[in-house]
């Protein structure tokens, strides 16, 4: 699945970065960043309801390619700039976390927490 597929499935808007052809292999949905940091998988997307800079930092440390903010949330400009600096695509969707994760799962994306 590509970032563009995620954008379409979640009816999401792009906040920053247009590199939508990046491949995504796994996903993680969480508001606890240490839980996210506990599971390393390549080419992941993070779904979260948090919009502080540490969300971007967490994705950066994990080499994640995309972050989806659920419930229509949008980070401030400096946080979005941090994502731009590291080439991380930011999307926002009006779906809630459960629905957003369910839609991606139903379309074949699997969890990065699965061993």
């Amino acid at each position, binding site marked *: 699945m590509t970032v563009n597929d995620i954008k379409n499935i979640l009816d999401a808007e792009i906040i920053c970065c247009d590199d939508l052809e990046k491949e995504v292999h796994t996903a993680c949905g969480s508001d606890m960043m*240490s839980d996210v*940091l506990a599971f390393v998988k390549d080419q992941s997307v993070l779904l979260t309801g948090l919009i*502080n*800079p*540490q969300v971007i*930092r*967490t994705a*950066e*440390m994990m*080499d994640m390619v995309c972050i989806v903010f659920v419930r229509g949330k949008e980070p401030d400009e400096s946080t979005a700039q941090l994502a731009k600096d590291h080439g991380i695509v930011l999307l926002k969707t009006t779906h809630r976390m459960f629905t957003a994760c369910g839609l991606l799962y139903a379309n074949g994306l699997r969890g990065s927490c699965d061993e």
Partner: protein
Amino acid sequence: MGETIKLHYEVPGDDFTRAGEASSNVKKVLKQLGIPPQITRKVAISLYEGEINMVIHANGGHIDVEIADNVINLSLKDDGPGIPDISLAMKEGWSTAPDNVRSLGFGAGMGLPNMKKYTDEMRIESVVGKGTDIFMKVYIK
């Protein structure tokens, strides 16, 4: 590479939004040196968890990184309140972080366990009321 590269960072304790800058910089340096991505990621995550802990619990501290041919040594030192029971602090899910930190996505009790998980060696020295020193090694295989 030959020569050991040494990096030093002061971590400010009063600004949660800046937490992670040191880890981000170390990750950039490791990338530039051509260290394998999986090693770089292990170092970045371990350091980041430690840096966040410093900001949350110890009002900052300092980080020293040594990059040698076959190993990366990480040292994190603070003058914070110390850890009364290290074995308890190492348990997944155990946390003393305040609610305001949890609302920012941390304090799940995974910081120290994650640092242990992603490094090859880890040692904690802590004195209550004086501070905590954490030493970690990641071998470049």
